[in-house]
């Protein structure tokens, strides 16, 4: 009985991001665990504790992504595996999904795969749903709580947060889920976990180990460059007035003029 959480490092949100004239983007060097994955990792470790299942953390990425794997081990995952090869650069969602699905198949006996809701850097979640399809498993996205899970009986019941409200869905395992912020309070690494993580040797699997051929690794989309956001003109207009009522009246007029009411 086995739970796998899939993670990735992303640039620190606080980092300033710049785009040069040629359309190349750069941010500071600081990478952090993808913010959504903190919830996924914690959920995997909570399930491990409650149901006595194995928890594996998986990342697709070059060596810097070791840190997010070590973080997962320090929080309590049993093992970590990194998937990488130059051909995987670019994070085309289909290539990514092929790689992750192959890794899950190789691990074997996996009942549940947990992703964070989306990758904060590329602002995308397509790889999550595509991983589910490549595995041929059910997909339950935007999970705010795992209501019940029976690893022996192979069932799961979750609450999903969708636009119209909250939905309770039950499904057969194995399944892929993505989790949102409400699901738990991210755990801290334990000191014992930190020691274990620091000592861990993390294997790297490439296309050879995963049985991926050229077709699996061909990207279907391509980033051609980056652009700065269109500049928001001007500085803020601070509304003055002797009283709150005066300021309010002035603001109301301005907003009506802007035709946004």
């Amino acid at each position, binding site marked *: 009985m086995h739970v796998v959480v899939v993670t990735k490092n992303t640039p620190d949100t606080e980092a300033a991001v710049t785009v040069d004239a040629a359309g190349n983007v750069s941010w500071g060097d600081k990478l952090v665990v993808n913010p959504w994955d903190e919830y996924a990792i914690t959920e995997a470790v909570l399930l491990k504790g409650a149901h006595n299942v194995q928890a594996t953390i998986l990342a697709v990425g070059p060596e810097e992504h070791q840190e997010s794997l*070590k*973080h997962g081990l*320090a929080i309590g995952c049993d093992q970590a595996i990194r998937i990488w090869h130059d051909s995987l650069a670019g994070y085309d969602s289909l290539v990514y999904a092929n790689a992750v699905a192959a890794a899950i198949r190789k691990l074997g006996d996996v009942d549940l795969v947990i992703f964070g809701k989306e990758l904060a850097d590329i602002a995308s979640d397509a790889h999550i749903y595509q991983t589910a399809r490549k595995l041929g498993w059910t997909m339950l996205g935007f999970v705010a709580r795992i209501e019940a899970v029976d690893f022996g009986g192979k069932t799961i019941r979750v609450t999903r947060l969708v636009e119209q409200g909250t939905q309770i869905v039950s499904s057969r395992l194995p399944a892929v889920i993505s989790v949102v912020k409400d699901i738990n309070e991210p755990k*801290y*690494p*334990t*000191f*014992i976990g*930190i*020691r274990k*993580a*620091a000592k861990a040797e993390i294997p790297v699997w490439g296309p050879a180990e995963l049985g991926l051929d050229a077709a699996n690794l061909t990207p279907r989309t391509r980033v051609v460059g980056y652009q700065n956001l269109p500049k928001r003109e001007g500085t803020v207009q601070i509304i003055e007035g002797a009283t709150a009522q005066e300021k309010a009246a002035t603001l109301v007029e301005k907003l009506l003029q802007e035709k946004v009411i």
Partner: protein
Amino acid sequence: MDFTLTEEHVMAQQMVRDFAQREIYPTIKEWDRRQEVNPAILPRMAELGILGINIPVRYGGQGFDYLTLALVCEELERVDTSLRVIMSVHMGLNSMALLQWGTEEQKQRFLVPQAVGEKYGAFGLTEADAGSDPVSLRSTARRDGDCYILNGEKMWISLASKAHHILVFAKTDPHAQPAYKGITAFMITSDMKGVTTGDIHGKLGVRAGSTGWVAMQDVQVPVENRIGEEGEGFYIAMSCLDNGRYTVGAGAVGLIRACLEDSIKYANTRHTFGDPIGHHQLIKQKIAYMQQWYDAARLLVLRAGWMKNQGQRNTRETAVAKWFATDMSVKAALEAVQVYGAYGFSDEYDVERYLRNAKGAVIYEGASEIQQLIQADYALGYRHDRPLRCELPAYDADYWQNEG
């Protein structure tokens, strides 16, 4: 010379940083304003294992080294001094004294519950009339059969009303010549008959921290609670300060960093004369000095920590680290308030709290004036370190990390 911290160091530091930032920072200003202790802090630090960070696993601790203790203190004080004060008294002054001087039985009885965080420890040396001159303390301990009767009042004791175990110093021989040979160390517990405690308010700084007094009236302390030998108390107290000062210096490094980081943030957002104030030279000067003070203080503290790891006597090196780091933290806080201008004068922002907190550290654990006398006496050859009967054990990963 390898200055790199290990992966364990970096991860442990990050973990404490995240904890302090997420769980303590959001409300610390309110607790500081109200001069009250947030009751969630001690149990949470216990739960996370922070209260036993550098105690061997076999004694209930987390098995990390002395350098990690400095990094933890830096992160705690980055958010508020009151957090680091907990480590100074519970770990630096009390738990590490047990590690160094305690019998196996005393380690089981006192150190294990402290490392696990079930019990909190404090340090009772200072009295109303005995601060810089601890030898003049007036508490007494009269031998009576298989126990001692303790009388006296300790003051300016952090965690006084919270601690379960208090390491106190009293004179078993009030007429000893020289006087310091008459001092003996005892572990009293807050539930002993005759022990009363109270809180002190109205402090300039560390207002979210617990500071108080401990009064002993005919307290019967069993002989098993005596730490070390009769007459050894002064040496024990001084060796405790080697560890307490270490945490104070490490914390001051965090305070300097708080001033630096907050000033940088403000310098990049506040505009005057059409530019961020970070473009103005006199602001640059302040930032530059804070950076220098942070770099230097940190290295001094880490050197002391490295020496502790090696099992080397580090009294002088720890003292100079504490003196420098705390003095510079006051200066950094003054500069930070100035960078913030009028907003530095308001408690809406953190920098005024840094200043009030910083002022405490140049007074306690050896005032800066005492530190200067210490350094001069070492340099002039008037002061030498003699080997102690019990030394702080060097960090041995195998011994610290295994169950034993």
